[in-house]
């Protein structure tokens, strides 16, 4: 039940109805921007995988709405906006559009190019339309600019500080030419920049209409109120959590250059006034390889982890961020120094979610699932066709959710840090010299429990070109997704080169020069289980066996359930006996 005081700021009582209408209008605008990107983009990574996001900020750079796109981008907008305002606050004009991708100026990694379009009413700056898109390639030593084995940001590609791509409505040929000459697939990159611009223009047009309808001053007041509203929703809920300090540690397998596990540690403190401190002190020092997560990205992943366990549906705006303090010492993997490489930082972000959920499971155990697959696997294949034309495939594979406290996990699902889609097999094959041999669930890959985790996914590729570079980034080979409350871990990740021939086991992260006809198979980890596997309803075990999601042997080994090998029906007596022995 609502408390009337929640809606009233001390200064002026607000109209709750206008507040609701303005909120709905802002949500609609960012959705329209997001839809525009899909309709106008050129690359699979944007138009099919949907690795992009759209937001609106006010004139002070505070994010007031974000579309339902990539959650990991959520908290990075404020730091990037801060750089724009710091450098350009007295040099923004109607018709300008700025871009940047520098992780050390508030960006995330080089492929994520931010675009900011300042929105003016006459000469007054009223806000920004912002679109972030993962570009297919930004140059550097490996196609896709995603390599996890780079050791300096200078190897990773073109680093763009905040610059104007449009100045008073005129596109900058200089900037466009620099980009064109530095990326492997300029048509796609410039085309996707066009999609970002189209979406920003749509956002500008619609935001101006909103300002025109209610007046700029009124919208400003209600934007303030919406930020306060999101903060209140968040704070009120955190206040109900048990106060204390909760810690959890999880690991990345390695940075790929050495064999050392990379620990991530968090200590969450729940404060009385409803705010949280998330302190990552004790996490690994900055690593040599490209797994370093800039502070803005670390904050982003922290915010989304907390949001994932909140019951309340707060608006996607900066008000939520006010309740969450992030501490990450400089020089660590979660707040690197220049020239630390960052291209594969998403992986660190995924593990950060796991670490946060591990700690949150101690605070709100009824709402936190066991660990999921551990993040997207990114596979980049690039080369030149016989006629000299380049091709770059950036394919992402995901994923499985861990079991929930009251139900199974989910298979074939985006990591909660993202909201990505997949590239259709037929689209990949039509565009690139590649054949997909399999795209399927991996039986037995789930962590067992009273509720089981989701199954992992397999995707297998055969090269149809003379040769191509293959860069594969995966994880969870040594530290499989964990279970909760007695649930078992999931099966770890596997990479296999030429499974029908030499069947060479490959590490989690590697580079390989693929030859024509060579095949790479990736089997992703599944999701962890929740609760005692021997307490699982044998009927559910039998149903999974009938659907060939688990084998007969798995049912016996993990759940103590004996199934008739022909009918796959539960042998109740044998099951009872087996479970008695086991427990």
């Amino acid at each position, binding site marked *: 039940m*609502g408390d009337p005081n929640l809606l009233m700021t001390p200064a002026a009582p607000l109209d709750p109805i206008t507040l*609701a209408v303005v909120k709905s209008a802002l949500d609609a605008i960012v959705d329209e921007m997001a839809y525009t990107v899909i309709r106008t983009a050129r690359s699979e990574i944007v138009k099919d995988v949907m690795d992009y996001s759209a937001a609106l900020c006010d004139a002070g750079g505070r994010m007031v709405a974000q*579309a339902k796109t990539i*959650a990991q981008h959520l908290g990075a907008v404020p730091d990037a906006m801060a750089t724009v305002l710091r450098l350009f606050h007295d040099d923004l004009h109607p018709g300008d559009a700025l871009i940047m991708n520098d992780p050390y100026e508030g960006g995330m990694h080089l492929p994520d190019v931010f675009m900011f379009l300042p929105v003016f009413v006459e000469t007054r700056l009223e806000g920004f339309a912002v679109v972030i898109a993962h570009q297919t390639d930004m140059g550097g030593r490996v196609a896709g600019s995603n390599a996890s084995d780079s050791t300096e940001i200078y190897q990773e590609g073109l680093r763009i500080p905040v610059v104007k791509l449009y100045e008073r409505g005129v596109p900058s040929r200089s900037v466009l030419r620099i980009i064109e000459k530095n990326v492997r697939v300029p*048509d796609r990159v410039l085309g996707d920049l066009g999609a970002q611009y*189209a979406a920003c223009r749509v956002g500008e047009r619609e935001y101006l209409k909103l300002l025109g309808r209610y007046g700029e001053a009124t919208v400003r007041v209600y934007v303030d109120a919406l930020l306060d509203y999101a903060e209140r929703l968040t704070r009120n809920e955190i206040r109900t959590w048990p106060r204390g300090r909760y810690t959890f540690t999880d690991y990345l397998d390695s940075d790929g250059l050495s064999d050392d596990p990379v620990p991530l540690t968090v200590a969450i403190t729940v404060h009385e006034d409803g705010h949280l401190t998330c302190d990552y002190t004790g996490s690994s020092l900055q690593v040599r390889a490209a797994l370093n997560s800039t502070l803005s990205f670390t904050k982003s992943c922290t915010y989304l982890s907390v949001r994932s366990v909140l019951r309340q549906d707060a608006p996607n705006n900066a008000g939520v961020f006010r309740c969450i303090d992030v501490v990450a010492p400089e020089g660590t993997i979660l707040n690197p120094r220049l020239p630390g490489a960052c291209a594969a930082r998403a992986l660190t972000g995924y593990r950060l979610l796991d670490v946060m959920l591990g700690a949150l499971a101690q605070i709100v155990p009824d709402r936190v699932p066991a660990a999921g697959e551990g993040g997207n696997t990114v596979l980049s294949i690039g080369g030149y066709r016989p006629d000299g034309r380049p091709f770059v495939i950036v394919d992402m594979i995901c994923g499985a959710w861990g079991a929930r406290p009251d*139900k199974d996990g989910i298979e074939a699902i985006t990591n909660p840090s993202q909201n990505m889609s997949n590239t259709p097999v037929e689209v990949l094959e039509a565009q690139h010299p590649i054949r997909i041999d399999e795209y399927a669930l991996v039986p037995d890959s789930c962590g067992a429990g009273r509720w089981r985790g989701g199954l992992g996914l397999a995707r297998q590729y055969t090269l149809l070109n003379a040769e191509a570079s293959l860069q594969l980034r995966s994880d969870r080979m040594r530290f499989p997704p964990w279970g909760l409350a007695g649930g078992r871990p999931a099966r770890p990740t596997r990479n296999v080169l030429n499974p029908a021939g030499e069947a060479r086991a490959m590490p989690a992260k590697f580079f390989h020069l693929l030859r024509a006809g060579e095949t790479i198979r990736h089997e992703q980890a599944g999701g962890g289980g929740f609760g005692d596997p021997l307490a699982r309803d044998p009927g559910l075990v039998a149903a999974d066996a009938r659907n060939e999601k688990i084998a007969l042997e798995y049912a016996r080994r993990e759940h103590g359930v004996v199934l008739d090998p022909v009918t796959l029906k539960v042998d109740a007596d044998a099951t009872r006996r087996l479970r008695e022995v086991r427990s």
Partner: protein
Amino acid sequence: MTSIATATGVRVGVDIGGTFTDLVVARSDGRLLVSKVPSTPDDPGAAVVAGLADLLGRASIAPRDVIEVVHGTTIASNAILQKRGARTGLLTTRGFRDVLEIGRIRTPDLYDLAWDKPVPLVERRWRLEVDERIGADGAVVRPLDPATVVAAADRLVAEGVDVVAICFINSYLNPVHERRAQELLRARFPALEVTASCDVLPEIKEYERTSTTVVNAYLLPIMRRYLEALTAGLARIGIAAPLLVIASNGGVVSARAAARRPVFCVGSGPAAGVAGAARLGTVAGARDLIAFDMGGTTAKASLVERGRVSLTSEYEFREGMSTPSRFIKAGGYMLKVPAIDVAEVGAGAGSIAWIDAGGLLRVGPESAGAVPGPACYGQGGERPTVTDANVVLGFLNPSWLAGGELPLHAARAREAIRTHVAAPLGLSLLEAAHGIRQVANANMARAIRSVTIERGRDPRDYTLVAFGGSGPVHAVDVARVLEIRRALVPVLPGVFTAVGMLASDVEHHVVRAHASPLAALDAAAVGTLVAALLEEGRATLHAEGYDDAGIRLELQADLRYVGQGAELTIPFAGDRLDADGVETLRRAFREEYAATYGYATDEDLELVNVRLVATGRRPSRLDFRALDVTTTPAGPTHRPVAFDRGGGLVNTPVLGREAVGPAPRRGPLILESYDSTIVVPPGAAVATDPCGDLVLTLDA
């Protein structure tokens, strides 16, 4: 079939909804008879047959004079929602058994770890792989192994599967393996129903194609049984006329076609109203309009331009869609079939108002439904709904619902709003009721935004055509949110969907893929393709009884910048694409692109598909000019109405709809009619047009 051109008999339109089945009988003199009967969800045809027998009997119309029965049905959509379709099996290429279950990976919302993915319509154990492979160039990479097909079929049949769908990778380029597998299955199990993706949707993207094919298979038996039963039921009462079904694209198809490809009729219900609105708009001089249909649980919006409905080539069918965020691909069953582009929001007359934990007023998506219904129904509903707000504000008659059959309890509406909204927010009763109405209006406006602004269309350029039982209650206020200046309320808005069915044309959509950069277009090849398309369209309509005079053929090109994934559909004239034609197309694309996205470049374009819309104009279809409806005039009276927040109660004249004529009358006014209430606030005027529709004009 010659009867189509010469018909003068009685025609019947039927809209089968969840609660009521609406029946409209149109006599050849234009007189309409209307009946609303309770639906019979277990056997939807039963209500139709009984209701129709009764209606015809009362009007002394001989069943043999009925020349056609057109109907919109939710049988297909309900079968999916309630998982009552066939036991369906699926044959796939080896390695791709899970395409259907994997889907497109996304979730409809962020930050919801309790979400559940929809259960696939075919369980994994009934999705079996066969050895075969077609390459990305259409060539056979691995020949089909018949033994694997037979083994899979044997296993499926042994498990009691009734229908088998077939979808192989890259079959859109070369259907040879799907066809062969189909033959093998039919030869071995003649009773088994088989549906191959190359016959349903020969287009790229394996998940979308598999899902569409599976839905078709899943619906085959239930749709066929339903249509057979309805045809037999109609025959029992002496109606031998053809039974037609509204397809998702708003056109009508024969019952036989619908039984063969039911996936094309999943959106049958909502499509009919939009198609009717398009036809009505053409007659009423409003060719650019927004169809706005507000019912009990949802409101729907759809755009009509130059008299044509807007089509989408894919949509996701799901329950409880509460946002028109159409870029979200998740949470439903993907159907890649032409459908009228309808945006739907969970805001209807029965939507419940509530306060969230942050103190914000929300309306919907939860609905009180027909039972218990709004608090004012007095059937046990205690939570306030949009209808309750309308009663409290005086928009709705406080004593009875339109039609007069259901008594209302205004005191219960007041109590519900006071307890659940006014008190917690510290507002007066009237302020709270206004708030509910205003939030509902904003939600409904969002549906309209998504079919206009998201497409680069300015809603102010359109007329709002409002129907559904509650559409006319909210039309003017929703129009105001979007600065729309003109609204139109048809005769019989409450059963307009059934009326609109009698106005649909027969429409066939034919698509041919032709991927080519526009700069390198082979004019001769396109010419051959266009000629074949035109021939196919003409032949199909001839076979259905239309002569050339009643046929309209329109060509369209799907174009995009090279590398994009979404196209704009641009009409083109003529049957050739020479250099001039290509230049015209290019210009038209850039204009449309700039209008939609705010910029356009001179980059290369590519042609993706050539489309034909072949329309057979039914000479006997409803002409709205001839409508003649008898209703019971409501006596002139007054009641206090709170139009504006803070404006207090205004004693407002309440008239029967018949009291309004061609001369404009200014609001405030409330008009009560047989099946709806029309609200004319201050600052608006109302008049009838020559068809008898009410035209509402809003002051700037």
